[in-house]
């Protein structure tokens, strides 16, 4: 088990390093960074000063080395626009994104799990078709559009929920719903197919032959096995959700990491962009690691490995 974790952690680290390289290359795609840092209204002399001050006159490889070295210690440099440590900025905004992610995931799970189980239990009946259709509708709904619609209905017409910002838990409801919509289809489908597989498996036939009650068969024997992939995917989904919250954070003016990234992209604030890409990627990698370990813990067949 320990070697398993160690091995996965090593792999995760190599992936992080690769993503770091990518994040660095990414931000060098734009033109002259010094000019964008200087901002409108400054002269070319200002630009030269800035170029020197930010070390942008050094060879790219040296810049990369320095950035990587510092980034590994958690120092992502300073934002050009916020004039603050990037690490601090991200640390400030991460709670918002994480809260959003957790609310979204909780909503998604609480809808998709029962839906998937019902669909599997009543496979090929109208219940199954309705559940599949709901998942399909969720999958087709553009999140920004859904966000706008919710805003009009719940924010404006009914006035039930606050529209933007992060003051209270109520602020997370609408964005959480929109975010949940992105994960519900996949989770429902997975739960459904996992449950169908489990229900048609030989060990369920054994359980029935043992005369066990229906509820014991469904909840003890089938669900346990069907839930394993769902639990592990849920962690991965959370990673996807965190990475995909940009649009939602922008629409609902949630000052989270996604919105920070969006702001920074439009301002060529590359240390922030790099760091956000890296942090979100690392989070995802961490979550898959957790999911693998969870998987191994839940599934006795993998536990021994």
């Amino acid at each position: 088990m320990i070697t398993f974790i160690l091995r996965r952690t090593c792999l995760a680290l190599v992936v992080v390093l690769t993503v770091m390289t990518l994040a660095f290359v990414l931000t060098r795609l734009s033109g002259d960074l010094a000019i964008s840092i200087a901002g409108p209204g400054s002269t070319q002399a200002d630009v030269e000063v800035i170029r020197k001050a930010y070390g942008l006159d050094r060879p790219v490889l040296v810049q990369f080395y320095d950035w990587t070295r510092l980034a590994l210690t958690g120092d992502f440099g300073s934002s050009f626009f916020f004039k603050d440590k990037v690490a601090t900025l991200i640390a400030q905004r991460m709670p918002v994104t994480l809260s959003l992610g957790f609310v979204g995931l909780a909503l998604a799970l609480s809808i998709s799990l029962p839906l998937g189980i019902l669909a599997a239990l009543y496979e090929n009946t109208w219940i199954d078709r309705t559940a599949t259709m709901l998942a399909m509708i969720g999958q087709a709904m553009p999140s920004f559009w859904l966000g706008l619609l919710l805003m009009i209905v719940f924010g404006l017409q009914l006035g039930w929920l606050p529209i933007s910002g992060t003051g209270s838990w109520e602020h997370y409801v609408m964005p959480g719903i929109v975010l949940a919509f992105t994960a519900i289809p996949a989770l429902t489908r997975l739960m459904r197919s996992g449950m169908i597989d489990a229900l048609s498996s030989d060990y369920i036939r054994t359980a029935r032959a043992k005369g066990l009650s229906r509820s014991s068969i469904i909840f003890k024997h089938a669900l346990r096995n069907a839930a394993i992939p769902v639990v592990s995917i849920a962690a991965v989904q959370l990673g996807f959700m965190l990475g995909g919250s940009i649009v939602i954070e922008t629409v609902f003016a949630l000052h989270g990491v996604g919105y920070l990234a969006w702001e920074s992209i439009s301002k060529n604030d590359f240390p922030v962009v790099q760091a956000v890409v890296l942090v979100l990627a690392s989070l995802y990698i961490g979550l898959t690691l957790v999911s693998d370990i969870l998987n191994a813990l839940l599934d006795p067949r993998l536990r021994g490995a």
Partner: protein
Amino acid sequence: MSTTPILSVSHLSCQFKSQGGLFQPTRLLRAVDDISFTLEEGRVLGIVGESGCGKTTLARMILGLQKPSSGEVFVQGAPLSSLDRRARARLIQPVFQDPFSSLNPKQTIKDIISLPLRAQGTFEPHEIERRTAALLERVGLSLEQGLRVPSELSGGQRQRVAIARALILEPRIVICDEPTSALDVSVQAQILNLLDELRRDLKLTYVFISHNLAVVEHVASEVMVMYLGRMVERNQTADLFKTPRHPYTQALLASVLTPEPGLGLPDVGLGDIMPDPAHLPTGCRFHPRCLKALPQCATQEPPLRKPTDHAVLECHLT
């Protein structure tokens, strides 16, 4: 018998490293361990043993599907590794166990049968057509069936297709890996009879792998018994069935349930320890299950002995 044997296997071994991610610890799995034998033209070598004994891996090495860790396979005296894939295809062909997975579901029967010809790249289309049609008939399929896809055929018919494909290049050796174990008894007999006919007509040499001793007894001229990657005994078929020398062979023979009412069930008495190729026992590999094990069986590898001209045995017992 001074001619070169058509197939000769020398000190063939195959070890697997259990694969996983990038950093998985490698566990060594000795599927086949130092096996040697020769086979004369026109003979049928039956290989028997339980699942996991390495018989399929041995077949894959002879077919060139699996690279041996050490040792070499010689066909007509030439090392297999020196042959390119087309030359090898002209000499050795397989018939696999599962007629459902051994035919490409997206191709027509004719395309499947003619694949070896097409892969040679030297045959004219009409030649390919002619030989395919001839072979279809030979294995008992109609030309119309040649235009169908595998899912429209029954298991026995599919196995006929697989045999046709194996024979279209007129190879010298056919490796039959459990060719009838996925078939019903009534169909099994059809296929066994067909294989036997073809062997006589085309002067083929078979390596015939099976876990069914009764079938092996029927088709093979000589039999090799494998246990956990080792050849534990080899002999002419009749001799082996008459006087099994190795305790494992004896147990195997005793386990055969012939349809003879009243004989009751044999007491094989091998215990509940199962052979595991990943954790090989020391000494003789069979000793943990052997009823007649001696003290040295647990520590010393058994010697290879030749009790008669044709018999080979690996056992401490005499």
